[in-house]
């Protein structure tokens, strides 16, 4: 085995970045398949380098290391430096691994698009940005990646920019993220003013002894604000459903597997700070649980195949938040990983379906695709089972661990556990509902649509991801805590939350969770494995509530009327009343005043000699009077 020096890790970022740069300038000239091949090669090479570099951690010989690339802003302790520890290694592998698969998938999915090369340039750029985020050795560089993935998200959501909705969605994503970044920036400022540096090592080394509780709480809360934006949690999740305007591989890569999990990563990375800030952790957990439930209910009501998955992603991210909020960082990262597998799988599967349906995304127009697309059917089925949390698939292990930890925390967390449990039920419900509506039953295809299985480049990634979704959970089971052991060096000195010890409690909790999933799954199957009229009756039984779910509680409208519209009115008032009227008016007013003063004294200049004499006389009198008064007369 070749030992890869950690100094060479910059290659992991440089490879996709180089690919992006190259494609940016010569992509059009390269033409359709070759541009894609180049991008895939860059991504795979990065995966290869990362895998080679990660080997020492697997063998247990590796030590976390940090390598400086170059100084950036020395005044605030910000430089380009790469940290290589198990956590970043795991993230890197997930990003490059899943990313490579999605690259390959896109070869088929984006076939024929006029901006094919540009798409791959963006994908490569995204990969590089995400790697910058996870490999950053300090908060400033983390923020670079953090914002760059936001940029890529913006570019890719509005990739089909001629569609106004896509352009608007891209902007919305960026702006909403920026609101979270506002918090993140404040966190950075707090960190800098507390520690005088932004580098991880500088911060974490001192965090334990010296950081005051209140400061830690504020830092934690502000970091969480950033994470809430990026990971689409309440109240900033509204951008993610709209982000589905982007091409489906983008949804899979950015808005399911990688970018949106950055928030979870940041909280996990900042574990030493959160450890000192239980309040912040509690808030994170509460937000996560609430979001998980909230989004799951909305997912139930969706009929767009991608929007279901979008809300599902929000809900699953809520789980991860719940985990890291409960200090179960390993569990959170674990779920992050498994979720990357199965959600990418689901999205890619959905993409395959959409591809087959000629771009249609409404599930009510699908049905019975089982025969037409067997591979997609099978792999997506695995994904559904995995996310629904049935053993022994990946989702079961990670979700189960989260619920176990939360339950074990007791107190307030018991409520959150209950919420998580209900969410598990709902998750199974909406996933099975989707699966049934798409693949089972009778075809409800519109005229002229002839679904067909997708090309090999698309199905191969599906299969690989399906395999990972099945086996991925086995890295960390209650029986063999492989992942936890692997990640240990990254959480040195941090007290991790754990599920209760003991086989009985583990089994009971698992059974409850799986039972909830089974109930949900069964309900969905029986409700939807029937003709459409029957579902409608089923849905009507919920009354108004179903409408709320369908419309996502009208959060967008509420934000629109409560925030956007008043904000815009305010801006208009400021621009056209205040600025033009008052501020500029004052300036012009001074000018007018000067003229008015001139006009006021103008009559003195009447042209009449006698009056001129009078002014002369008056001036003289005033002058003499002053002199005499002064002279003491």
């Amino acid at each position, binding site marked *: 085995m070749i030992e890869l020096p950690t100094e060479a890790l910059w290659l992991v970022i440089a490879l996709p970045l180089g690919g992006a740069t190259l494609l940016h300038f010569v992509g059009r000239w390269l033409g359709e398949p070759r541009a894609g091949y180049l991008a895939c090669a860059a991504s795979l090479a990065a995966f290869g380098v990362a895998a080679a570099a990660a080997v020492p951690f697997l063998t247990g010989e590796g030590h976390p290391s940090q390598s400086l690339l*170059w*100084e*950036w*802003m*020395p*005044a*605030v302790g*910000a430089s*380009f430096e790469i940290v290589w520890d198990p956590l970043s290694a795991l993230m890197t592998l997930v990003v490059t691994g899943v990313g490579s698969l999605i690259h390959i998938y896109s070869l088929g999915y984006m076939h024929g698009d006029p901006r094919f090369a540009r798409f791959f340039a963006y994908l490569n750029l995204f990969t590089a940005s995400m790697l910058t985020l996870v490999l950053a050795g300090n908060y*400033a560089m983390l*923020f*670079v990646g*953090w*914002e*760059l993935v936001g*940029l890529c998200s*913006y570019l890719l959501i*509005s990739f089909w*920019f*001629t*569609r*106004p909705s*896509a*352009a*608007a969605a*891209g*902007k919305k994503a*960026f*702006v909403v993220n*920026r609101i979270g*970044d*506002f918090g993140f*920036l*404040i966190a*950075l*400022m*707090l960190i*800098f*003013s*507390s*520690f*005088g*540096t*932004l580098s991880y090592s500088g911060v974490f080394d001192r965090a334990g002894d010296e950081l*005051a509780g*209140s*400061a830690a709480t504020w830092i934690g809360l502000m970091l969480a604000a950033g994470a809430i934006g990026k990971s689409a949690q309440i109240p900033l999740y509204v951008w993610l459903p709209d982000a589905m305007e982007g091409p489906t591989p983008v949804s899979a890569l950015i808005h399911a597997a990688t970018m949106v999990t950055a928030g979870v990563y940041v909280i996990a990375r900042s574990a030493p700070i959160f450890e000192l800030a239980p309040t912040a952790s509690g808030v994170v957990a509460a937000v996560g649980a609430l979001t998980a439930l909230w989004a799951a209910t909305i997912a139930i009501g969706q009929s767009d195949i991608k929007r279901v998955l979008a809300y599902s992603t929000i809900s699953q991210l809520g789980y991860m938040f719940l985990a890291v909020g409960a200090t179960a960082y390993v569990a959170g990262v674990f779920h992050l990983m498994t979720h990357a597998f199965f959600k990418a799988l689901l999205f890619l599967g959905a993409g395959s379906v959409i591809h087959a349906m000629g771009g249609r995304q409404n599930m009510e127009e699908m049905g019975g695709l089982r025969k037409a697309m067997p591979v997609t059917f099978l792999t997506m089925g695995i994904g559904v089972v995995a996310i629904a949390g049935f053993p022994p698939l990946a989702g079961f292990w990670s979700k189960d661990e989260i619920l176990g930890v939360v339950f074990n925390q007791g107190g307030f967390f018991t409520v959150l556990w209950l919420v998580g449990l209900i969410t598990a039920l709902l998750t199974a419900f909406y996933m099975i509902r989707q699966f049934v509506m798409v693949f089972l039953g009778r075809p409800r295809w519109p005229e002229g649509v002839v679904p067909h299985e997708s090309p090999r480049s698309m199905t191969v990634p599906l299969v690989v991801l399906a395999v990972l979704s099945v086996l991925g959970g086995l890295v960390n089971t209650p029986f063999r805590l492989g992942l936890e052991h692997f990640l240990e060096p990254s959480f040195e000195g941090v007290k991790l939350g754990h599920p209760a010890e003991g086989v009985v409690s583990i089994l009971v909790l698992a059974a409850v969770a799986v039972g909830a999933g089974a109930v949900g799954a069964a309900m969905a199957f029986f409700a939807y494995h029937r003709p459409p009229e029957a579902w409608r009756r089923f849905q009507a039984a919920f009354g108004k509530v179903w409408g709320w779910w369908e419309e996502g509680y009208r959060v967008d409208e509420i934000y629109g009327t409560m925030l956007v519209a008043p904000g*815009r009115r*305010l*801006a*208009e008032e*400021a*621009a*056209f009343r205040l*600025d033009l009227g008052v*501020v*500029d008016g*004052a*300036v012009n007013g001074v*000018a007018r005043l000067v003229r008015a003063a001139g006009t006021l004294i103008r009559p003195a200049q009447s042209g009449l000699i006698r009056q001129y004499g009078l002014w002369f006389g008056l001036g003289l009198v005033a002058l003499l009077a002053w002199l005499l008064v002064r002279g003491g007369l």
Partner: protein
Amino acid sequence: MLTLLVLTPLLGAVVVALIPARRRELHLPLGMALSVAPLGLAGAVFFSFDAGEASFQMVEKVVWWEPWGVSWQLGVDGISLGMVALTAILFPLSLAVSDSISHRRKAFVVAMLFLETGLIGTFLALDLLLFFVFFEVILVPMYLIIGVWGGERRVYAAVKFFIYTAFGSALLLAAIIALAVMHASQTPDGLLSFDYLALLALDISPTAQMWLFGAFALAFAIKVPLFPFHTWLPDAHVEAPTAGSVLLAGVLLKLGTYGLLRFNLTLFPEATVSLVPVLAVLAVVGIIYGAVVAIVQPDLKKLVAYSSVSHLGFVVLGIFALTSAGLQGAVIQNVNHGLTTGALFLLVGMLYDRRHTKQISDFGGLATPAPLMAGFFLFMAFASIGLPGLNGFVGEFLVLVGSFPSLPALTVVAAFGVVLAAIYMLWAYQRVFTGPVSGAENRKLADLSPKETAVLAPLAALVLLLGLYPGILLERTAPSVEAILDRIEQHTDYQAPSPGRLADVFLSDSEEDS
């Protein structure tokens, strides 16, 4: 060397003036070629600059108006270095995009070169009166550039620009005179002096400092422009021709922030420390106000103009944070804003040349016919928004992180400006470049010509370079900035917060509550 740098453009102006007006095809290329000479000189200065040195370098001094102690004294330090380089870079580019100047081209080129001399001179002057002379004299070419080659309301805008800024500098002159007289009364030989370095040694009473600070600050605040003195700016920008807008935003506004940094902080340290709240509040109000007002502007140029108000608020905030990081951020943000906003104005100008309108509503979906232009615009927009990796972020980030320890509450408010920046920039981009193409004229809009690309590409490269490796500038500015801070700490009981003392965080917590 510095004298040569200052006078080369003037020489160029004379050369162009000597070309007969008939040969109008010669004026622009010649002017461009001549403006490359100062660029070369500026480059030489930049790279021969000793990065470890805090004091002025390459100082040249010639007695000028001897009876009054006025001298032609030039020197460069870390604070002026970047501005000189920026000025030298923007001029050839601005001239390159001035093809649309159709009448009195010769006069235009002469005015531009004259302006360059004035600007470089302002940044290099070490004699207060010399500084004032340059500071004031640049009004004339700029006034002509707006007033002769501008848009419909050009005369109104030009006069407003001239009077407003001249008004500010009137009090500046009075304050400079006061300093010179003070020098005469405090030195044994009783001579007047305008020498900046000599004036630094003055012992100025706190009350006098307040007044003088006020006079200096007013002049510079109008130039920056700081809220509420900003209303000349949108008018001037909207009416100015492209080159005028580029230089106005790129360099002229920086005279204000440069002046605050160079003179207010060092000459009046006590007043600086006690007036920090006033200026910092104005800066933050400007950040938010400029951004909010920019959101709803129907005119693209006006939007960019208001964004300048917002961005320069960051610079002022950084200056009055009185921390090392804040000051460094202010210096580099000065340069950054010149590059990005300069480029944005270039792009708006290119749009205007094609469509003869700047109204956002007249455009739509331009990314389809003009992808390259859209790409550059988006790039510069993101630089302006403060995307890490591009230059705007470095400045803003240093300013924010640097300001937080000393002005926590204000900095938090200022940080919200980055959210607003994303809103106005991306919304504008969305309306102009994305969506289906609207209208026949937009459909057949030409993409960037090779020449236009060549103008924008160096700016983009610099934006990227400064974003990723700001050290090239920061290492040169850091010693000078530290020197300013040291000076303030020596002359007042002010102590720059040293981040990393965890106790400070408690303080900031309680301040945030109050």
